C-alpha cells in the first residue's frame, strides 16, 4: 500500500464565485446604449404628439415667420409655410415608429410562418417557398415599392404598411428556415416525435423558443428596413403627403430648397432622428448577434489584459520571471490582479533556460527520472 504523503488542503483560490449573469447583463455596452436610445424614441413617440406646442399642419402665412431659425417661440424653427418644425418632428417620430413597428411585427410573423413551414413541409413546398423568398430578395425593393404604391388609389399608412410587409419577410424567412432545419435534425426533436408529440406542439414549444435570438434579431432588422424604406418612399413623394412622417418632412424640405437657403433646422432634425433610430437598432442588433455567437463576443471582449491580440498569437503564459525581449512581458503586468498569478507564481517555479544561458537545466540521462522520482 502506498503511503499517503503529507497533505495540503488548500487549493489555489479561484476567482469570485460565478454570478448567474442575466441576459441584460451579458449584453455588451454598445447594445445597451442602443436599447436605451431606442427607448427614448419610443417614449417620444408615445408622449410626443401630446405635448406638441403647435399643430403641425397649421400654416402661418405671415412672412416674418417663414423659415425662421430656432428661437424661443419655435424651438426648432419654422418651415417655409410657417409651420413649427418641432411639432412636426414629434408627430413624425410617432408615425414613422408606429409604421415601422407594425411592419416589423407583421413581416417577422410572416417570415417565421413561411420559414418554419418550408422547413417542415420539405419537398416541393420547401423549394417553392425558398424560390419565392430568393426572388423577392434579389429584386430591388425600392423601385418595386414605388410602382406598387404608385398604382394604389390611396397612399396612406395602411397601404404602405401592407406593401412594406409584403417585401420585408423574405430575409427573415430564409434565416428561420435554415435554423429550423438545423434544430429539427437535433436529437431532442426526434425524441419528441418518438413520444408522439403533435407536430404543432413541437413547433410551438420546442422549435420556436430555440430561435428567439434569431427572431429578435430578425425583428430588429425588419424595423430598421421599414424605417429606411418608408422614409425613402416619403422622400420621393410616393406616399401620402398630408401626413407628417419624417420622410414627408424631408420631402418638403427638399422641394422647398431648404438646403440651398441654409435652413438646416428643417432637414437636420428629421434626418438625425432617422439616423439615430437606425443606429440604436443596429447597435441592438449587434448585441443580439454577439449574444448568440460567442465567437464574436470573445473577439470583442475576453482578451487577456485587454491588450491587442492577434488570433494567431501563441497562448499566453503566466510567468514568474519576465522572459527576454518578448511581448509576453506585457501580459505579466496585465495580470497583476489575477488570483492565479498570486498562487502559482508565489510558489516560485524555477525559470527555464534558453540555449546559452548559464544555470540551465541539464539534459536527462537514461535512467534518470525513470522512476518517476519527484514528478511534482
Amino acid at each position: 500500500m502506498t503511503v499517503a504523503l503529507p497533505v495540503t488542503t488548500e487549493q489555489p483560490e479561484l476567482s469570485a464565485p460565478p454570478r448567474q449573469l442575466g441576459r441584460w447583463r451579458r449584453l455588451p455596452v454598445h447594445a445597451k446604449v442602443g436599447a436605451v436610445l431606442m427607448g427614448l424614441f419610443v417614449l417620444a413617440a408615445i408622449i410626443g404628439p401630446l405635448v406638441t406646442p403647435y399643430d403641425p399642419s397649421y400654416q402661418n402665412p405671415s412672412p416674418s415667420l417663414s423659415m425662421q431659425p430656432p428661437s424661443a417661440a419655435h424651438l426648432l424653427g419654422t418651415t417655409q409655410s410657417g409651420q413649427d418644425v418641432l411639432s412636426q418632428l414629434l408627430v413624425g417620430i410617432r408615425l414613422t415608429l408606429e409604421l415601422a413597428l407594425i411592419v416589423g411585427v407583421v413581416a417577422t410573423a410572416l417570415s417565421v410562418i413561411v420559414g418554419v413551414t418550408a422547413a417542415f413541409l420539405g419537398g416541393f413546398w420547401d423549394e417553392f417557398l425558398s424560390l419565392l423568398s430568393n426572388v423577392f430578395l434579389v429584386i430591388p425593393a425600392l423601385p418595386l415599392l414605388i410602382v406598387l404604391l404608385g398604382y394604389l388609389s390611396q397612399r396612406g399608412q395602411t397601404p404602405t404598411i401592407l406593401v412594406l410587409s409584403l417585401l420585408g419577410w423574405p430575409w427573415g424567412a430564409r434565416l428561420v428556415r435554415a435554423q429550423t432545419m438545423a434544430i429539427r435534425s437535433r436529437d431532442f426533436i426526434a425524441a419528441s416525435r418518438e413520444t408522439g408529440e403533435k407536430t404543432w406542439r413541437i413547433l410551438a414549444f420546442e422549435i420556436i423558443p430555440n430561435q428567439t435570438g434569431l427572431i429578435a434579431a430578425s425583428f430588429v432588422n425588419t424595423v430598421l428596413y421599414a424605417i429606411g424604406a418608408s422614409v425613402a418612399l416619403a422622400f420621393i413623394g410616393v406616399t401620402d403627403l398630408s401626413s407628417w412622417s419624417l420622410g414627408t418632412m424631408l420631402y418638403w424640405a427638399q422641394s422647398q430648397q431648404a438646403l440651398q437657403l441654409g435652413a438646416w433646422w428643417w432637414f437636420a432634425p428629421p434626418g438625425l432622428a432617422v439616423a439615430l433610430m437606425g443606429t440604436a437598432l443596429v447597435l441592438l442588433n449587434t448585441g443580439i448577434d454577439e449574444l448568440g455567437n460567442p465567437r464574436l463576443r470573445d473577439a470583442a471582449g475576453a482578451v487577456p489584459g485587454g491588450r491587442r491580440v492577434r488570433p494567431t498569437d501563441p497562448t499566453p503564459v503566466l510567468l514568474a520571471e519576465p522572459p527576454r525581449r518578448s511581448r509576453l512581458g506585457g501580459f505579466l503586468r496585465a495580470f497583476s490582479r489575477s488570483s492565479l498569478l498570486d498562487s502559482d507564481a508565489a510558489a516560485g517555479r524555477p525559470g527555464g533556460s534558453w540555449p546559452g544561458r548559464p544555470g540551465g537545466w541539464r539534459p536527462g540521462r537514461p535512467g534518470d527520472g525513470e522512476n518517476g522520482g519527484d514528478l511534482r
Partner: protein
Amino acid sequence: MTDLSGRAAARAARAARAAQAGRPAPEPRGSQASPPGSPVLEIRDFSVAYRTPAGDVRAVDHVSIDLRAGEVVGLVGESGSGKSTLAYGAGRLLRPPALITSGQVRYCGRRTVSPADILRMTAEELQRLRWREIAIVFQSAMNALNPVLSVRGQLTDVIRAHLRVSRGEAHDRAARLLDLVGIPRARLRSYPHELSGGMRQRVMIAMALATEPEIVIMDEPTTALDVVVQRDILGQIAELRERLGFSILFITHDLSLLLEIADRIAVMYAGQMLEVGSAGVIQHGPAHPYTKGLLSSFPSLRGPRRELAGIPGSPPDLRHPPPGCPFLPRCGYGTDDCAKVPMTLAPVTGSVPGAGHVTACPFVGPGSPAMPVSAGTEEVAP
C-alpha cells in the same frame, strides 16, 4: 528507409569525399541522434486555465508527462478530461480565453542544440518549432484542411514554410509524400471535398510528416472513421513510424485502441493525470480505480463473458474542482481521506523499479479487490 530529404545521400557523399581526401568523415552538425529512450518532450507541472466571465476553469492542473524518442504514448480520458488541452497547450496553440498558468515544456529533438522551453519561446522561435519538430494530425480532416487549396497547395505550403527548397523540389517532395501514404499522385490536384474520409486523413498524415518531425501529436485521428478504415490508417501509422522513427502522442478516449498500439499509457481525468504506465502493465495490473473502471467498460473479443460495469456518474464541474481527488464522487473505493490527497504521481507499490508505473491514488493498487459496483461505499482498500 525512405530518404525524403536527400540528406542521407548528401551525408554519404560528404563521407565519400572525405574518405577520398584521406580526412575522417565530417560529423553532421547537431545531429547527435537522440539515444532511444531519452526524452524528447518533457512536460512538467503544466496547468492551463480558461478565463470565463463566470469564473476560471482549470482545464489542466499541474500535469507532468514525458515523451521519449521513438515511443508511442497514449493519452486517454473522457471528453473534458483535458487531454486535448494538454497537447495543444503544450504547443501553445490554444486561443484566448485560454491561459497557461504554470509549468515548463522542454523540447529536445535531434535538430535542437540544447533543450528549450516552449513556454518561454518567442513567436518567431515557435514558428520554427511548429510542424518541423512537432506536428499534429487533427481529428476531423474535413475541417482541418483548407477548402480552397488543393492538396498539393497545402503540402507545399508546409514544405516551403520550413525547408529551403525550390518550388519544383517542393512539388516533388509532395508527390513522394503521397506515395508514402499510398495515395495516387493524381490526387495532388484534388481539393479536400473531393476526397473520401480515409483519403483525407491520410493526406493529413502525409502533411504531418512533410518535414520529418520529431513528434507527431495525433488527436483522435480515427474517431471519425469507420472501423475498417481505422485499421488501415493505424497500420499505416505504425509502418511509417518504423521507417521514419518519430514519437507519437496519441490522444483518444478509446483505451482499448491504446492497449494495442501504445508503448506507454497516461490516464487523465478532470484535468489531472491519474496513472501512467506501460501498456502491458495498465492492461493487466492497473493501479488507479478510474483505470480499472475504464478497463471494465469495454468487452474483449476473446476471454470469458463478463458483465460490463461502466462508471456511473459524470465528471466534475471544472470551475469548482473539488479538493483532493476529482474521481472521488464516482469511485467505488472512495473515503473521506480521498479529499485530502495531494494529486502527485507516485510509483505503484509492488511495481518493478524503473518501469515507471505511477499512480495518483495512494490507497488503491493493482492488488486491491475488484471495485464495488456502487459508488461511495465505505469499503476501504486494505
